[in-house]
């Protein structure tokens, strides 16, 4: 570690970051007008932006102070926290670029260098960033380590292998066997052992020693954060729901990328408090919630605002999503007293690593408990584990629950895939069906 880099990092942490936050606050003095269809915006948005901006801002000064790891969203990051890695989430970064409608530019860079257009757009954006150094976040530190788990898809393994080779850095892969019926003892033992096998590698890369008690504290913090996130999502059962799922897509960022840190834990307490107050006072995320919807799959990042407005204007609110639920669903398995086995259970059974029968039952439960009237499924080109099977899930759900549903063919972050006319037609037809079913 360099003393100079450490001093610079400390100055930026204590003075630079607060100054940046103040500047951002100054710039935001004139907030954008809120369309009538929406209720008052969440106050917590401000804090969310602060946390995320600070995280990306400080990452510029971290080389030479802490080791940097690029991590996948489903990887058991708590273990890395015990070695004080500064973690960057390429999926989050790609979503950010997608939301800024710059996905196609970054995908183009990767495609120009030989990556196929048929690959996941999160991966193409990240590879485009890696090859060009471009980022709307200013600058991102190069990783010392890559950490991925195929519990969200096999794609991340292929993608991280490509980065590991390009940058000549170590890759740690956490192999999570797909749950076809239920996890076996062998699956759990295998995953638990892999986690323990990682310790010497992490000690070598980070040049730090592993302390079980430190790790347990991190795990506890992570567990409580996930539980609070789950409670926030539960609060959306209220009618009207205090926030929309499009809000939740944004508020998801800390649970994905800062899980295991007190800052994320504190943040969700603030959000929880605000959401509870709104429920008590009957404040809805949209001004007149008549219909309640469920969203399936990852967000269409470049069309979040469009979709939020489109539905809010029709008095329709997304109150739950399989995607946002993913970081709360399996938290119940975490047990600080039995960290390895419980992490194997938690990370091995998340929705994308679980069979479609499980997903069907989960969705049925969500539809019932959140009093859902209709379903929008995003069939995304980028994510095969999320999308393969959706046609039959839709069929099963509409048949069993008599639920109007629509499938949107799009992509998570490559805006070139969006077909305005086709989507509009499908959405209008869906809304008509939904309104018709209510009238009937």
């Amino acid at each position: 570690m360099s003393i100079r880099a450490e001093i610079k990092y400390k100055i930026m942490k204590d003075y630079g970051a607060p100054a940046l936050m103040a500047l951002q606050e100054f710039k935001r003095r004139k907030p954008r007008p809120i369309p009538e269809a929406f209720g008052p915006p969440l106050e917590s948005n401000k804090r969310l932006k602060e946390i995320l901006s600070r995280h990306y801002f400080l990452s510029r000064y971290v080389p030479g102070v802490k080791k940097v790891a690029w991590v996948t969203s489903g990887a058991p990051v708590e273990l890395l926290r015990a070695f004080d890695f500064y973690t960057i989430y390429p999926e989050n970064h790609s979503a950010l670029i997608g939301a800024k409608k710059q996905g196609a530019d970054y995908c183009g860079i990767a495609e120009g260098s030989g990556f196929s257009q048929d690959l996941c757009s999160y991966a193409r954006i990240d590879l485009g960033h890696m090859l060009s150094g471009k980022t709307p976040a200013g600058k991102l530190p190069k990783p010392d380590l890559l950490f991925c788990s195929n519990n969200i898809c096999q794609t991340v393994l292929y993608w991280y292998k490509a980065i590991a080779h390009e940058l000549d850095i170590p890759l740690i892969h956490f192999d999570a066997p797909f749950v076809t019926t239920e996890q076996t003892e062998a699956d759990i033992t295998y995953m638990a052992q892999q986690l323990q096998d990682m310790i010497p590698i992490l000690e070598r890369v980070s040049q730090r020693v592993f302390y079980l008690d430190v790790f347990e504290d991190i795990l506890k913090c992570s567990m409580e954060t996930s539980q609070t996130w789950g409670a926030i999502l539960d609060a959306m059962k209220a009618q009207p729901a205090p926030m929309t799922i499009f809000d939740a897509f944004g508020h998801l960022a800390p649970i994905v990328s800062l899980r295991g840190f007190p800052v994320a834990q504190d943040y969700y307490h603030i959000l929880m408090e605000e959401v509870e107050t709104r429920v008590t006072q009957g404040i809805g995320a949209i001004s007149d919630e008549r219909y309640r919807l469920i969203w399936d799959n990852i967000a269409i990042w470049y069309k979040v605002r469009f979709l939020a407005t489109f539905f809010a204007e029709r008095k329709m609110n997304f109150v739950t999503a399989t995607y946002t639920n993913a970081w709360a669903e399996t938290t119940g398995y975490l047990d600080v007293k039995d960290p390895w086995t419980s992490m194997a259970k938690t990370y091995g059974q998340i929705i994308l690593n679980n069979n479609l029968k499980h997903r069907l039952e989960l969705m049925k439960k969500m539809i019932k408990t959140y009093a859902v009237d209709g379903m929008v499924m995003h069939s995304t080109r980028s994510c095969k584990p999320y999308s393969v099977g959706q046609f039959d899930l839709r069929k099963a759900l509409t048949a069993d629950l008599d639920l109007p549903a629509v499938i949107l063919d799009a992509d998570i972050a490559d805006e070139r895939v969006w077909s305005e006319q086709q989507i509009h037609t499908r959405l209008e037809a869906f809304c008509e069906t939904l309104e018709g079913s209510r009238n009937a």
Partner: protein
Amino acid sequence: MIPARSEYLKELAQSGQKIMGVLPALYPRELLWAFDIHTAEIWDPPGEILHANAHLQTTICPIVKRSLEFILKEPDVINAGYLFPHTCDSLQNLGTQVKDLIGVSLPVYTFYNPKGSFNTTTTTYYRDILQNFQSSLETSYGPLDSEKLLTACVLSHKIDSHLITIQHARMTDQLPLSNSEFFKLMRAQEYLLPKDYLSLLEQVDILDQPAKTTGARLLVSGILPPTPEILEFLDELGVSVVADDLLAVSRRIPKFPMDPPTSALDYLTDRFFILPPCSTRGGDLDERLYHLSKLMNESQVQGLLFDIVKFCEPELFDHRLLVKTLRERNIPVLTLETELHNHISGQDKTRIEAFTELLFDMVVT
């Protein structure tokens, strides 16, 4: 003479043979043989895709679509169920989609293949997976006869040994077979009974001395061999495919000869871990590059043909680096994208011709 797939399987089924439909790619066939279950692999069944389109998006690979189309027809030749080895995201989900949502009258089995870099933890786990798979088969077919399993492993070992010899003979011009004939022979293992396949391999004529050849030499990489029409076209052009890095072919044959099995579980475990590197197992890219370079050197090829199945993520991610590295070494590379139709577009024909001209130039120099 290699019997045609559908007629052969039909006759087997009519004779009362238990036949399991197996999707790509890696699975312990010996365990199934020990239960007297024959494995008929489903990679690229012919015919139009009609019903599968109602279940799968347009951006799903043709292997997955064709497999589902085949399953939806509930063919009589498959009577013991379906096995979905864990190969990629799409096949992973197809397994649960067929089992849990679409529903078929036959049992559906799955088999997880560990991913990434391997160590003793992976080896231990693989042994557990084998035992769990054995238990799931025992639920339907009764207790396993361990002698039968060892016999199956011995048979498998003999087949592997012949395949290694044949592949080597192919590289050294000691195998007088055209491209089409060679890959027909390789793919016959997908549906022939192991004893029939072994007998076929035993009949293969291997020359004592390398034949004198003047044509260009090529290595193919991808999931499946090029379609018969492409192989015939390469034959016409005088280009020999002398080595391959195909999932359906050499990536399922051990890298080097193994000792004859004495313990079935040890043999099956060892066999899995000495298979060549493969994109679907998530292995290290350097290892794959090293393996390809070694193959190219040993087979003295002038160029490499990537025949990539459309939308195949595991292959597409590795492809960019492999092509880049080979081009840096001045090795001619051609990439074709296939949807598994047995016809070559005019454009692809021209590209193949131009590519082979380049290979012939290198033969001359």
